[in-house]
């Protein structure tokens, strides 16, 4: 079927609910309304309020209760309406969801997939556009996934639902309806912990994910360079091998993400390359990210989020060295 990311995720959730009667969806407006982005559209009608449950407006409540459900043998798939509101549940995620397994040496664990929209570009109010993946990855014990296309979104979400741990599934709102792709109708997995290779090339490596994948693809095609484009897909645990292999092959690395530059995922990736492939590089690594400041109001977001021009400038710079 041809599907955009919303349809692909909706289809994945439908298959997960069909496959696993312990799986339930819960969150704000996920029921009759089908979610504010319509990601859960139709699932309430198909499965009823026992499987697709509207909750009070309480992010810590949604995640804390989901942890308890998971401990009790269920498989909750909570939705937090926007990542900007998920800080109310930060405590539950980084003090509990990621710790129960180690706290009990594996006797209790928390199989749960937390879905939340991230990143900007859709002209919203404050707190609807953040890219907080580094915060959650730094906590340790949380698997953090960001899809960049409908096919991966469906396969990664199904793979996340088959894991026995908490997975944060961060959905870039900008990509929800940006394009359609051929997506198989049945169940399939895209492996978690494995980066995707968007294109292969010789001149340079561009390591990116989420909203920046289409931006990087356009920049590369405009400059007509031969580039490895790596879509990280799983932020934590990161697929170091794929990244290092590419860095060693091309000797030139640009890392592009929408999240602010400082202390970000790009810092982690460049540190790993510096530690393990430094002498195989022939120019310094370049990081491209948003400025190191909180996400701005809509009229300034185009000046803030990295665009093709910023990526092209980085390509020109690294190829001139």
């Amino acid at each position: 079927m041809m599907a955009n990311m919303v349809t692909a995720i909706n289809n994945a959730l439908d298959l997960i609910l069909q496959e696993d009667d312990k799986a339930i969806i819960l969150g704000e407006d996920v029921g009759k309304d089908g979610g504010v982005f319509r990601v859960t559209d139709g699932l309430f009608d198909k499965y009823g309020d026992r499987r697709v449950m509207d909750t009070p407006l309480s992010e810590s409540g949604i995640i804390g209760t989901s942890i308890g459900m998971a401990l009790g043998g269920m498989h909750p798939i909570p939705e937090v309406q926007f990542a900007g509101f998920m800080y109310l549940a930060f405590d539950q995620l980084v003090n509990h969801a990621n710790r129960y397994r180690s706290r009990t040496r594996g006797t209790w664990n928390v199989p749960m997939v937390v879905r939340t929209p991230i990143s900007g570009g859709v002209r919203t109010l404050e707190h609807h556009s953040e890219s907080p993946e580094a915060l959650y990855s730094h906590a340790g014990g949380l698997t953090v996934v960001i899809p960049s296309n409908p096919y991966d979104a469906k396969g990664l979400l199904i793979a996340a639902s088959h894991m026995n741990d908490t997975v944060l599934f961060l959905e870039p709102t900008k990509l929800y309806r940006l394009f359609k792709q051929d997506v198989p109708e049945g169940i399939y997995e895209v492996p978690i912990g494995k980066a995707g290779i968007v294109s292969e090339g010789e001149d340079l490596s561009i390591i990116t994910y989420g909203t920046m994948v289409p931006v990087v693809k356009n920049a590369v095609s405009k400059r007509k360079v031969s580039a490895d484009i790596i879509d990280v897909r799983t932020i934590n645990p990161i697929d170091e091998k794929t990244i290092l292999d590419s860095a060693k092959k091309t000797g030139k690395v640009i890392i592009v993400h929408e999240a602010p530059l400082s202390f970000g995922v790009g810092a982690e990736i460049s540190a790993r390359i510096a530690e393990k492939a430094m002498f195989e590089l022939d120019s310094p690594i370049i990081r491209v990210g948003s400025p190191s400041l909180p996400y701005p109001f809509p009229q300034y977001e185009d000046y803030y989020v990295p665009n093709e021009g910023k990526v092209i400038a980085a390509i020109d710079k690294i190829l001139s060295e």
Partner: protein
Amino acid sequence: MEKRVFDGSINYIQIMDENGNVDENLRPKELTDGIILQMYKYMSLTRALDAKMLSLQRQGRAATYGPSLGEEAAQVGSAMAMGPKDFFVPNFRQHGTYITRGMPLDALILYWKGYEEGIMPARKINAIPYIVPVSTQLLHAVGLAYSQLYQNTGASVITFVGDGGTSEGNFYESMNFAGILKAPVAIIIENNQWAISEPRSRQTVAPTLAQKAIAAGIPGVQVDGNDVLAVYKVVRDALTNAKNGPTLIECITYRMSMHTTADDPTKYRPDADVEKWKPRDPILRVGNYLRKKALWDDSKQSAMEEEHRQTIDAAVEKAEQFKKDPKSMFENIYATMPAMLKEEEDAAVSAQFWMQKNDGE
């Protein structure tokens, strides 16, 4: 127009007073003298273990420890009211509940010596590990309770929070969620009057903590938390009613000791306050009752204390034989260990965690 749209009130229950006199009208039929004697022994064992843990901590043989001294009735009475399939979600102080539910003493001691491995048997007694961030655990209890409803197991959940924890957002969120989900859970406030150095009066101007249930639309009740019979009754009633949803229970008790071993209560709490609570001791009053009934005497007391001493000493000895394995830190973070973590583990293990001194010689 103006009319009254809501009225609320909170009842207080006591069955056994400070002198061991029992209100037979309120006493649950199944609470025979034999069961009361059992409660007495569990409370006494809890207190004996508490003393041992303090002593071990002072000798550097245990980590920071939060004593339960004075709060045994709230912990043991609640545990006794649970059914065999029911679950227990503690904060960090309910040693008496763990003990009554059958947690091996050596495992508890191991835990408080600073090993997470000690909590592993909790799963077998349907208990969640000790939880430290106050009130966060209440939501786990609500979700766990809902999972029992969803899977139609008939099991319920009890969970604990302190008086300080009732000031947290998660406390209210848990009651509210539990009400909406009709979760079979009893949320028990172990109101020991102190949150480290802050008295109950710094937490809220509400005259009772039980009345916080009213805002969430669920039943709330206040109980003499030093009366093990009354605690038993209100928790049992809450669990009997759990198919209709949650209950909030406020146990009025007193923290006779420090918050944890890291704290010195003489800095902020007058001794006179503590003295006032001594006659209300939860174990003393049950002892008085049993003696009046000729079920207990000094020789039985000495025999029990000796038995507890031996049990605890054996448990300490077993716990101290535990062989640590720092590798286990890495092994249970994910169901499947990622390559990046495996690499860190291998480096640490091959260097023996850099524990050998290296002077460069």
